[in-house]
């Protein structure tokens, strides 16, 4: 992490909410679509609170042992190795579980004793009972728009968190973000954001996912480095949204009308 302050443009009261949750040792849950700034927010808050972050990208093969730790076999026999969650508890860091719904549900059950007032992490294998220090904070995030019948957070897990919903920022804010992130001029940032607004209204109808702020930033970077405008939009914004040729052609029509 660099020493200079990370760029973060707040959407609402999330910074103060995070600080209050941190001060009161409450775990936090962040919901929001892909590329709307969830991970950036955590990293920014970690920097602000001067805590290290352990990020775990969850997937369906993630086991409880991956979080807590396991015995490994080395040259001199077996030894215990802490997982990211255990390490965060020991060091009083922020443990961030990204896309937590991707993890199997039995995995996330290890979080339960950490997320109520006990704030403990029992390690059966090493016969330890870790008490989390005040600086430890657990944060999870997921994308609620993701539809799979069996994926979704267990209600009993969900009810252990303070929640905040992220969405794509309001157009004025998003313009600031694109400018702040890339240094592109305001007029161009506005055009990009207008395009994104148009494309977002197609979500669920023609597109599975809305165009994210992240894609706009990619596009702005390509534009800044001198790539031809329409081609940059196509590469950074349109192609990632769809695989269907006809849809891509249609989205390019939208680009031609609103952007070019």
């Amino acid at each position, binding site marked *: 992490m660099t020493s200079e302050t990370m760029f973060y443009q707040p959407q609402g009261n999330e910074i103060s909410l995070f600080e209050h949750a941190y001060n009161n040792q409450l775990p936090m849950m962040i919901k929001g679509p892909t590329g709307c700034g969830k991970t950036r927010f955590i990293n920014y808050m970690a920097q602000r609170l001067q805590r290290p972050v352990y990020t775990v990208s969850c997937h*369906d*093969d993630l*086991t*409880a*042992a*991956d979080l807590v730790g*396991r*015995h490994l*076999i080395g040259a001199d026999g*077996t030894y215990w190795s802490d997982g990211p969650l255990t390490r965060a508890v020991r060091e009083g860091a922020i443990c961030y579980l990204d896309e937590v719904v991707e993890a*199997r549900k*039995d995995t996330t059950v290890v979080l339960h004793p950490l997320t109520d007032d006990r704030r403990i992490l029992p390690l059966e294998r090493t016969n330890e009972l870790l008490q989390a220090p005040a600086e430890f904070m657990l944060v999870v995030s997921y994308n609620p728009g993701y*539809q*799979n*019948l*069996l994926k979704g957070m*267990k209600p009993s897990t969900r009810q252990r968190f303070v929640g905040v919903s992220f969405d794509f920022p309001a157009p004025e804010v998003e313009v600031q973000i694109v400018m702040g992130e890339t240094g592109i001029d305001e007029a161009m940032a506005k055009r990009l954001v207008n395009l994104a607004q*148009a*494309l977002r*209204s*197609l979500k*669920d*109808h*023609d*597109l*599975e996912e809305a165009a994210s702020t992240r894609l706009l930033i990619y596009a702005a970077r390509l534009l800044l480095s001198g790539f031809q405008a329409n081609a940059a939009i196509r590469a950074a914004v349109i192609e990632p949204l769809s695989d269907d040729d*006809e*849809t891509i*052609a*249609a*989205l390019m*029509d*939208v680009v*031609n*009308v*609103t*952007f*070019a």
Partner: protein
Amino acid sequence: MEEQVGEIWHKWITRRASNNYPQAGVTLASVHKRLMILFRALGGDLGLPLEAASITSYESRRSWLQRLAGSGLSASLAWKDERGIRLPPQIDVFPERQFNEDLYTWLTLMLLGDRQHQEPWLQSNQRLTQAILQQFPNLRSLYQGLVTAHLKQRYAPHSLPAAEREQELVIRQALLHPGSQTRLPQAEFLPQAVLLWLHPFPPVSQQESRLQDAKAEPGGQQQNVETERRAAERVENPESKDRGLLTIRMENIFSWGAFSNLDRSTDEDDDLKGAEDTIQDLDKLSISQGGKQAAGRLKFDLDLPAASEDDVRLHEGILLPEWDFKKQQLLPDVCRVIPMLSADAEPMSLPAELRTSAKRIRDLFQQIAPQRYWHRHQPDGCELDVDACVRYASDKRAGLSPAADGLYRDLRIGQRDLACLLLADLSLSTDTWVNNQARVIDVIKDSLFLFAETLHATGDRFAMYGFSSRRRDPIRCHQLKRFEDNYNDRVRGYINAIKPGYYTRMGAAIRYGTKLLSKQANNHKLLLIISDGKPNDLDQYEGRFGIEDTRMAIREARQAGLHPFCVTIDRKGNDYLPYLFGSNGYLVIHQPTELPKKLPLLYAQLTQN
């Protein structure tokens, strides 16, 4: 011979008279998806479908060639109404293909705006044009290109008689400088169709436009019958619930004084004398605005079977609400859903022709059936695999250098806490044939059999119902299998007894399914709907009303924590299902006969761990 010559002459002269360029033509079908996405992306109403406009009569001045050929009496223009947006089925007015495509784009943009109430045609089109050019400055060159090309095709002003010349000049100015013209001079003919503008008098809401015409032009053909004041009342158009055969007791109609539900709004009779006479005979005038859309008029009603012939009604039914999108409110307790059991169902085993497929599917699904067991030799896991570790350690002691992978074992849990309720559309349209052997209903029957076999194999809890409706009461819901029933010969008998019913009031059926499924204690609840077409019914449920009500019912199901999913064999499903179920919430099966085999696979995909 005469006929042949006539035909050749007709073809030749029509071609000579037409100003079209078929070789550069663009069809709506080829650009449909692109225009739809453009329309929605720029803020168009998500619920409106795009349809081909019908050719409407449009009488403007014709060239002598056109008069000779008898063509040029109609025009294909764009408009928007409550039921959708309409664009010409084909555009081939320009010799360059690009211009024809651009014209489609332009008209789509024109349809984004709304014509304000009673705003004259000239003003509204100028206003829309200005709005587009202001919002999307990139389109200026496209617009200018189209205007230049279109002006070349219009009659030269000097070739027209005075009144029409003035009209033409105004239109030309309005095209070149939108917003500059305020008044369209009157002339004998309608001005030559302006391709870049919307239809001056869209044909759909005829009743409405007639009303407006009547207001706009007092005098004209309106006859002044109101010389004497009459007791007049405005009545709500009574919903003629019992218009079926002999349900009106004719002897009750004693005189003209009684209200007779007579639709005069679309009366083609030019002679108003007859109507006037009738009015003179009436003591009291009852007037209401007909609420029916034109499409509803060609429908005929289906009689319900006599009670003795019908299936068993399980109870008197439950009342459910319905969403009225015009009022934006939920009308409480207007739909009655009646659960029924087929009367003539005989218990039976699985039909012989399905046994092989059923076995294959069962085998497949038993593999993914929920079980919980230790996977050994895993590179990762929650326990050490002692056997593997011992082997590893001993190999090492023995001076070998074994690979240290696969030393763990892991307990994988495949438990599925799932309940699925299947709703099958058993409307009359399932009576159509899909090929020489099978009707839609047969395909649905086979699908239900194989689906039941599948779920039986996985051990997931499931229920099955079939529905069809006849207006709001009754919505018949055939109970094939409840959650608590075992899947057995009796259930197969009920599946075998399904037959085409009436109409598709999908919203009410979904609400009923939601009610049943919400009572289940499972964590995951799948509401699966098999359909063969849009929601529709005899009343206003046809069209937008049904779509909006179904959409609301689906939203309610989601709020109740269910996962609605629709499988359809309607090829046009892509037009309306995204609006109802979202782009991930449905599947269109193009070949109906594939449905029985695809349904179990879809289920596997939806519920995979």
